[in-house]
């Protein structure tokens, strides 16, 4: 311990910073959905990770409809790929937002005044239903015309590294043959030698999508009138209702927003960090996001982002210093330590400043 396992690795700590940052940003998108819903209705929506998972399958289906999955990916034209990415980024958040709202209306809303345990148990039930739905979904989508076993992993098309995309990006000086932005002629002329550090087009895409989204959300909650209504509902739903706020609509909107963020997350994750997708993806990723939300102080938006980044770094540095198989154990140890010593989280406070 304490020494990188592949000891000669150049730049491995800087590399871990990059990897942790991108992985953390993606976890943050899911964690925001957890934390916002908790802030408003005090429900830990365990089905949220699975909404994210179904988002990846929806995105895959969009690509399948365009005919650019499987063997056809490599020969897809640049136009088809741009169209595919645009459609995925447009439709998947809509799908996930609708799904999340539907779950709330169907399952959680009737239980709004029930003991807290009831919606919580229902959330776990919904999570299982969605996982099985994901499995079924995988089973009905053929790969290159051949049926696949429903519980198997799914090869998500690597659209950003197809020959046609790569060639164009290399020509434009954006990156080198293996997608490294720092090795592209453009970056080299500005930054000089990258020293073997790997920052790829995929990492760039993660940052380009997640950071503006998180900023937009913060702005929206802080400055828009609907955001104000959300904060009011979080503080005291009864008082908010007395002030003329339609609490049900605000709750619905929160689920919509959380779902949409998960939808963006699923498209970006499948295009970049995840080379394959499967029905268990949401469970694991949801647990990380939940941990991130708790770590930052559940109900606290900047806290969720901070918590997610910490988890990203724990994973990337943990893999280097302790070993790959221990990374999830380390994340959950942090969760336990946090719950024991500081249940309000890093940024959470006792004044219940939620959302």
């Amino acid at each position, binding site marked *: 311990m304490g020494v*990188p*396992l*592949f*000891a*000669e*690795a*150049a*730049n*491995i700590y800087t*590399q*871990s910073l990059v*990897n942790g940052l991108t*992985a953390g940003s993606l976890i943050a998108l899911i964690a925001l959905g957890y934390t916002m819903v908790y802030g408003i209705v005090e429900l830990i929506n365990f089905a949220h990770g699975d909404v994210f998972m179904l988002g990846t399958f929806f995105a895959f289906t969009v690509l399948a409809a365009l005919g650019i999955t*499987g*063997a056809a*990916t*490599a020969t897809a034209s640049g136009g088809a790929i741009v169209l595919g990415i645009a459609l995925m980024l447009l439709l998947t958040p809509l799908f996930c937002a609708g799904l999340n709202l539907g779950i709330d209306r169907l399952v959680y809303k009737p239980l709004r005044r*029930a003991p807290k*345990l*009831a919606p919580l*148990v*229902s959330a776990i*039930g919904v999570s*299982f239903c969605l996982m*099985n739905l994901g*499995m079924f979904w995988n089973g009905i989508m053929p*790969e*290159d015309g*051949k049926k*696949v*076993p429903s*519980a*198997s*992993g799914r*090869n998500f*098309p*690597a659209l950003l*590294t197809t020959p046609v995309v790569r060639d164009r990006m290399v020509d434009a000086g954006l990156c080198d043959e*293996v*997608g*490294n932005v720092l090795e592209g002629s453009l970056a080299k002329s500005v930054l000089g030698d990258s020293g*073997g550090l*790997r920052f790829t087009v*995929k990492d760039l895409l993660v940052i380009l999508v997640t950071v503006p989204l998180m900023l937009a959300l913060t702005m929206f909650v802080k400055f828009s009138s609907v955001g104000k209504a959300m904060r009011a509902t979080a503080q005291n739903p009864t008082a908010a209702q007395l002030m003329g706020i339609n609490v049900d609509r605000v709750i619905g909107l929160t689920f919509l927003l959380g779902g949409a963020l998960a939808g963006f997350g699923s498209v970006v994750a499948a295009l970049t*960090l*995840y*080379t*394959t*997708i*499967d*029905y*268990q993806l949401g469970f694991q*990723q949801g647990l990380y996001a939940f941990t991130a939300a708790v770590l930052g102080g559940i109900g606290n938006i900047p806290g969720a982002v901070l918590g997610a980044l910490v988890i990203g770094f724990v*994973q990337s540095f943990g*893999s*280097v210093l302790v*070993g*790959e*198989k221990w990374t*999830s154990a380390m994340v959950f140890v942090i969760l336990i330590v946090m719950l024991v010593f500081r249940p309000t989280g890093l940024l959470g406070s006792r004044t219940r400043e939620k959302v």
Partner: protein
Amino acid sequence: MNRVIRLLPVVSLSAVALCLGLTGCGNGTSSTSSGDPNTIKIVSSLPRTGSAKGQTDTIVNGIKMAFDEVGYQVGDFKIVYEDLDDATAAQGAWTAEREAANADQAVKDADTMIYIGPYNSGAAKVSIPILNKAGILMISPAVTWPGMTKPGKGDPGEPGIYQPSGTPNFTRVVPADDIQAAFGAKWAKKLGVTKVVVLDDNETYGKGIATLFKENCRELGIKVIGGQQSIDPLQPNFRNLMAQIAGGEKPDLIYFGGTSQSKAPTIAKDILAAGLRDVKFMVPDGCFELTFIQQAGAETFKTLPTYVTFGGDPPDRATGKTKEFAEKYLAKYGKQPEGYAIYGYEAGKVAIEAIKKAGQKDRAAILAAAFGIEDFDGATGKWSFDKNGDTTARSMTGNTIENGAFKYAIQLSDLETE
């Protein structure tokens, strides 16, 4: 009272969930002994849910084919075959609970004489001791961890720890991993590999064969970079690990001890995603199935030269009895068998032979008869069981992947003559 009413929905919901869970787990455990002295029941326990299903479908087809050939009748005995599942949908792979439940069911059913399976070495660790106490013959078509049978080749204490009755009851018709790992290492050397990275999935089979591969590499003078790393197959991606490999001393080959269920396809794609080029990828027989190629995508293997070792001849280049089997299978089921189908068939044939030789419905007699099988003219050639229950057949082949299909590349005898 009010409190009770308020808690009611929670209680009932939990009850419903519990019932669903129980019925979900309980399928197939209700069978009882028929009491007919002329009926012999044979069960198989394989992962029938999850991505191994493609492979186990063809194994079960192979078993059924063997029984069909004799019309489910051996001497005076009528054969009843039951296909049990040791996997759950929630896990997508075998679970210790299901495997133990299947073994218990076999023990309690007085008609069950033979247990074909399991598929995973980790599952065998669970079921062998249970079935050993009852003296039920096990014939595995796929378990390859050496420790299951060979003293000194596995972990300390193996295989004695699986044999509470003191005598072995586990046989396999597939060559064990000590042969396969050595073959893999020799093949790597022949491919000009001088530096390897060895990864495994932290399961009995994967970690076992990866460790053996590593030791064989060291003996052959191939450098193993960074020891041996286990992954957590629940992780959705392995970019942190790949970044370390890509940033460190460059290997000629990455070996992954694991199966297509424990993220081998994801690792193949992640190697490329990490920007590693001109590196080879080798996996053992747990990946010798179509779903491995499907999950990683045929495209991946155009950039990543991949080598898959497998015990036995692949169906498409078989000769003699093996070829006969492949043709019969194709005619009966209308598609090519996967790599392990032949071992399912062979396990079925061995079951029939053991009953025939024993000539009575008695677990001990059938067990003794099976261990006494010699010069058996099976689909995998002419072979015997040794005293440990291992087949003496040791054909081993190496395959590459081309155009989305496995392609035969090399066999054991090619490497041994050098």
